[in-house]
Every structure is written in C-alpha cells, then in structure tokens.
C-alpha cells in the first residue's frame, strides 16, 4: 500500500537552509536513492545600477576581474609596476611554460619607481601558465604565473 503522506525530513531542510546561508551557495540539491531535497536560497541577484566604465586601459583590461579559472597556485603581483620577464633585454626569460622551478627561484622582475623587484617562486613546481607579458604593466593582485 503506497503511503499517501510524504515523510518530510524537516530537520534536513533546516540544516540545508542553514548551510546555504553559511556557505553563500545559492542552491543545494541532496539526493539519496529515490529521495531528493533541493533548497534554493533567497539571495536575489544584487541589482547593480552604477554606470559601467566607459573605457578600459590595458591595465584595467588585464585586471583580476577577468581572471580565468586556474588550477594550481596563482602567484599574484605584490605591487603595481612593469613586468620584465628577463634580467635584461635580449636575455633569456627567467621562466617559460613547462619549466620546473624551486621555491625562491626568480620568476620575473617588476619595476616600480626605477627599482627592480625580483618576484620569487613561493613553491616548487611546474610553470603551467604565464599571465603577463614582458614590458607590460601589472596591477596589485593581478596573477603573474601559475605553478602546479
């Protein structure tokens, strides 16, 4: 005889609601065998009415906002400045994609106020992506390279 009543697990829903709130997720679906709970949060898309930027500089265009998903460790720029991939024009680059680096190896140089700041690798690994270009500017926080 089929049950005409749902066997509601109120407690589970309450927990999921709490989790939604806590994690900032917008939706949780939970399935077990043929049973399923799906909770959608109230977080309505925040209406942003501010004007969009009229134009974007090369710097702004390269900003963190546009950062793609990265696997591995992203090395962010610790300062605003100009990137140099090599010790001097014509020299080979410090690193290229596929290179293995040790912790402390120089990845590139950022010039700020005529000071050359070597950027060291925070860990050992393989360079999987280089996100900046030689002689181009970088902002604070922009990803320089990705190490896996």
């Amino acid at each position, binding site marked *: 005889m089929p049950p005409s009543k749902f066997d509601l697990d109120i407690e589970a829903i309450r927990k999921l609601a709490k989790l939604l709130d806590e994690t900032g997720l917008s939706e949780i679906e939970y399935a077990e065998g043929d049973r399923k709970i799906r909770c959608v949060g109230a977080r309505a898309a*925040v*209406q*942003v*009415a*501010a*004007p*969009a*930027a*009229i*134009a*974007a*500089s090369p*710097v*702004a265009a390269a*900003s*963190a*906002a546009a950062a793609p998903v990265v696997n591995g460790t992203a090395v962010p720029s610790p*300062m*605003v*400045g*100009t990137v140099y991939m090599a010790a001097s024009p014509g020299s080979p680059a410090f690193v290229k994609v596929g290179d293995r680096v040790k912790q402390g190896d120089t990845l590139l140089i950022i010039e*700020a*106020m005529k*000071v050359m700041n070597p950027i060291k690798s925070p860990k050992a690994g393989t360079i999987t992506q280089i996100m900046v270009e030689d002689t181009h*500017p970088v*902002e*604070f*926080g*922009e990803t320089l390279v990705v190490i896996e």
Partner: protein
Amino acid sequence: MFEKVLIANRGEIALRIHRACREMGIRTVAIHSTADADAMHVRLADESVCVGPPASKDSYLNIPAILTAAAITGADAIHPGIGFMSENAKFAEMVEQHGFAFIGPTPDHIRIMGDKVTAKKTVKDLGLPTVPGSDGALKDLDDARKVGDAIGYPVLIKAAAGGGGKGMKVARTAADLEDSWNLARGEARAAFGNDEVYMEKYLEKPRHIEVQLLGDSHGNAVHFGERDCSIQRRHQKVIEEAPSPGLNASERMEIGNLAADVIRKLGYRGVGTIEFLYEGGKFYFIEMNTRLQIEHTISEMITGIDLVREQIRVAAGLPLSYAQKDIVFSGHSIECRINAENPETFAPSPGVIKGYHPPGGLDVRVDSALYDGYRVPSNYDSMIAKLIVHGSNRNECLLRLRRALEEFVIGGIDTTLPLHRHLIAQTDFINGDYDIHWLEKFLDKK
C-alpha cells in the same frame, strides 16, 4: 592643460574630481585598493589601477605604488583629493620630482601650514589675527596678571607641556586668576613633571568660520567668502553653511579680503582654506588647510564657480580668469554630510546598500559615490554622501533642505539621514543660533 590626471583618492571626492576632469576634456586614472574594485570612481574613470590591499597605508598612502601607477598610465598630473596624501609635503615633492604636476600648492606651502607654530607665526606676520596670549611661558603670577589684563578675561592657563586637557584651567575674572594659576601649575607638575604654563584668551562660544581661497602662480589671489562649519561632533563637521548666519556683510568682506591678502603675499598657488574661531565680532586664526575641503561645494553653490576646475587650471599654470569683483555671491547654501553610522550611537555601519534614491529637483545637489548594491567597505571614512542645497535666501534654503532630506533614501545600512532631519528642525539651527559646542550639547541632552 593636462591630458590625463591620476586621482589619488577614493569615494565621493574621487568622483568629484573625475567629474571636473571629464568636464574639462581631461582623461582620468582611478587608483584603488582591492576593497574598492567596484567603486564608482573606478567604474567611471577612463582607466583604473589597483595599487594595493584594503589597508590605506598599503594603497591610498602607498607613495611608490601611486607614482608607479601614474608612470604606467602616462598621467601628467596627480590630484591628491582630500585626506590621504593631500597635505603630505614629501609626496608633493616626489610627485614633482618624478615629472608629474601636483594639483595642489607647492611643497613649501604645505610644510609651512602643516606646522602649527610656523603657520601661526607666518599668518600673524602677514596680518591675520590669532588668539591673543602670552609669548611663551609665564614667569610668575604677576606676569600672568599683566597678560590677563592685556588680553582681557576670561583667559585659559595651559601647561606648556600639556595635552588632553590636563593642566588647563579657565580664569573667568582677574579675581579667579590666582586659583587657576595654582591649579593649572599643580596639574601640570603632576601630569608632566613640568609646571611651566602659558596664557591664551578663552573663547566660550566661538563659531568656526573659514574662508575659501584660490591663488595662481602669477601672484593673483581671490576669496569665495566664508563658510560656517560650527555644527561639529568630535571635531568632525556635520553641517556647513555659506554665508554664515553669524556674520554681517562688512565682516564678511573684511575677513575675506584679509585672508586673500595673506595668500597673495605668500604667493600661494591652488585652493586653500583659512580657518578661524569667531566670537564677539573678532576672528582668531586656527589653521590653514592647503587643499580642497569637503565643504567646498557650498562655496561653489553661492558663487557658481567650479572650484576643482579652478584648482586644476592654476596647477596647470594658468592665471585666474577673474578678479575679486567678478565673484558674485548669490543666495545661501547648506551641506549635510551623511555618514554610514547609526544616527543615535554613531556606531559605524558598513555593508551593502539596498535601495538608493537621491533627491532631485531645482538647486539640490548630491555628491556621492553610492549606488544600489554597492558595499560600503569598513576600511575607510564613514562619510558616504553630501547633500548640498541652494536657495535664494537662507529660509528658502532651509525649506528646500527639509524636502530634499525627506526624499533621500539610503537602504541596507544605518545612516545619519535621520539625525540631519532632526537637526535642521531645531529652533537654534533654524535661527542660525549655534556655536562649535552646540551639537555636542544637543546630543548630550537627548
């Protein structure tokens, strides 16, 4: 004229400067911390550069980062705005050394006015009234009596090594002097191990009156009348108005011309403000701010002149395009500073703006970098909007201000809008009958 200006600031004042630049056909570069990536000045600027993490010292006060951003973007001038680097003589110097124009006065003038003692001596020599007092420490009670008689009672006896109100006593009459003398010296000895004291005239109910000034690099200087900024809480201005309801027309022109003379003699370039205490028909110099001020807006409203535009023009070496007689004062203006604070407890209230609707209509101006959905960061100053209203006279201005405050909606966080609605309905305020202590006394009573 400049092609591109880097705005080394944030919030409403960065937006204010951006607007002036856009209206002059100048391209803008916004710098910002990571906390301000979505800020209005960043969205509207032609270019933007993230210069550091949220902490001001690592971003908006980070001189190498700011100069590097200017170099990278090819800016030819830097506007320091208000606060942050705006009165840092070292910064102004470095800006110039790196080949950028500094939109502000010379480093020397910033330095002179940045030191209280030098500033006071400088303007006194140039003819400005300062608070009368003893020249340094008093020798003995007799000396104190002589100085007291000379400057008139009430007087304040202050520890030379003092601070924080310790070793500071008022003598209301000559009869009080000996007691006050003894008490002040006793406290000074206990607090600082030094019983040297000096004397100053004590002002009981002064107004804060400041004169808006502008000088160019060709020896010209003008004033834009005064502002009354007496409505203060903890030395923060809350409401400002121009002209002051406490001054008459001849006092107005007299102090204006006097202040303009001083900066003309100094060869001062840029906008600046000389602040006075005003009591009993007399002005007493407090300090000079060698920068734009938040409340420059109300001077703009009564003169019709864009002060940021003028500031940029003189920084580019252009001469003033008008003389004092061309500056015509018209009507009355009041500004309310709206803070992200609880209107009762003044606890800061950062957070996401849910619902933003500024008032509109004739002679109502809102300077704010808010927008619906914007998150007010907790890292910076709590001022989020300025409501500025103009009227053909003070009464019209007050009524317009009331209706504009009625229309203003800022949702999602606590703001001081309710406080402003309450303040402007007070009889003392309506009558213009207030001094620098009025607001704190009023809040204590509540």
